[in-house]
């Protein structure tokens, strides 16, 4: 596999972009930062499948494609299976000798938002991972159905306002906890599972490379700050992501072979979650006196999760 050097940004910046501009993602969208980084992390040929969602509707609107690699979108739920089908075809044709360039290195990748990953495409992802196809699934987790205007998903965190779990006079927004997709995918026994964030570009690039290099199905959940639905200024995408990782709202870690947990980023100064919440319009209502208890609950759950992750890491089980 042809890995790009990620020793430093200058080295990394010699990559030749294969994700083109004039796509239709919102200004400041983190999706394309993540996609660019994945594609720049390798020189291998890529076959990319994408679920319906912001990324899909913004990068292949006829008559334009923003992809310089093979790319397919079928439906909302089945990018994992599309990638699996293509991977199966690759194996069959390699065996039969019908590939045009049998020695060309290729990696199979699927992208989905949290809507298609945590919710509607959950079964397709689970099936493809269980079957052991050699592919990497990357969830662009912006914690809501942003493509359709910001409805709740099972990735939406407690207390966030969405159009279908609204904050109002008698509601503080979403009541249910965010689904722990990383744990679920690790429980599949996938060889490499991680949660990564684009502000920590080097950790993310290395994680992508590890996933691409690892044989078998790998899953990566990436935090993708959504300027439109999280309600922050487009220029602040990386700042908000810094807050997400430094408040430990989004801890950065990997799980190898379903059990070996490594924390990949430890903030020097862990910030109180209030700073993260206060920077986004979707949490504005939590600062009303009657909703302060939700902030306390969020902080408590973050602390517990961090404690859990650290103990898992120490235990080396």
């Amino acid at each position, binding site marked *: 596999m042809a890995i790009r050097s990620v020793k430093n*940004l*200058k080295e990394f910046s010699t990559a030749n972009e294969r994700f083109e501009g004039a796509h239709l993602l919102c200004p*400041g969208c983190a999706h394309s930062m993540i996609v660019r980084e994945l594609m720049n992390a390798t020189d291998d*040929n890529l076959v990319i499948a994408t679920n319906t969602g912001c990324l899909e509707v913004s990068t292949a609107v006829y008559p334009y494609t923003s992809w310089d690699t093979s790319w397919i979108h079928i439906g909302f739920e089945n990018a994992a299976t599309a990638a699996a089908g293509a991977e199966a075809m690759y194996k069959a044709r390699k065996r039969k000798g019908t590939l045009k360039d049998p020695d060309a290195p290729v990696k199979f990748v699927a992208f989905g938002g949290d809507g298609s990953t945590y919710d509607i495409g959950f079964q397709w992802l689970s099936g493809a991972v269980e079957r052991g196809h050699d592919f990497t699934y990357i969830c662009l987790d912006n914690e809501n159905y942003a493509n359709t205007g910001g409805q709740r998903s099972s990735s939406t965190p407690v207390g966030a306002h969405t159009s279908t779990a609204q904050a109002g006079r008698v509601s503080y927004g979403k009541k249910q906890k965010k689904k722990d997709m990383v744990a679920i995918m690790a429980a599949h026994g996938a060889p490499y599972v991680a949660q990564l964030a684009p502000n920590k570009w080097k950790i993310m690039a290395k994680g992508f490379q590890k996933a691409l290099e690892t044989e078998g199905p790998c899953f990566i959940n990436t935090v993708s700050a959504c300027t439109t639905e999280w309600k922050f200024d487009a220029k602040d995408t990386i700042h908000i992501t810094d807050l997400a990782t430094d408040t430990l709202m989004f801890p950065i870690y990997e799980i190898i072979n379903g059990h070996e947990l490594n924390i990949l980023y430890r903030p020097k100064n862990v910030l109180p979650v209030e700073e993260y919440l206060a920077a986004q319009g979707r949490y504005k209502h939590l600062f009303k006196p009657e909703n302060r208890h939700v902030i306390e609950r969020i902080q408590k759950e973050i602390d517990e999760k961090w404690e859990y992750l650290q103990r898992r890491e120490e235990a080396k089980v």
Partner: protein
Amino acid sequence: MRGVLATDKRGVRELGAEDLVGWDEVTQGVVLNSFDIEVENPAFLRPEERPYSDFNSYTATVASWRVIKPVYNRDICIDCQNCWVWCPDSSIISRDKQMLGIDYDHCKGCGVCVEVCPTNPKSLLMFAEAEEPEEALGKWPEKKKKAK
């Protein structure tokens, strides 16, 4: 900068403003080709070396989305590539580890590049879309002293 800008390669078409397609232009199975002719892996080709097809969004522009734009000041830049790695629109043009400038056909003016620029003063600043880059450079702020 000449030779590396998307503008040099394209008719610069406004997205959504293309002529209505004729019957013959509709591709079978809605398949789009990224390039006009066979290419080696584009990971080994710089954009200026690629035979982009008209279907590639590289040949289109979203410049009209912008109300403010980043202006680049070469004199201060340290080529750290922060702007390159975090640009969501593949609009920071870097070659051989050097930042060359901004692709104004693809830049949407989000301002992320300015936020992540570490120099003092910044090497990228947002200006009104109508502002001429030369004038903008003339208005560049002085180095800020650290607040004590």
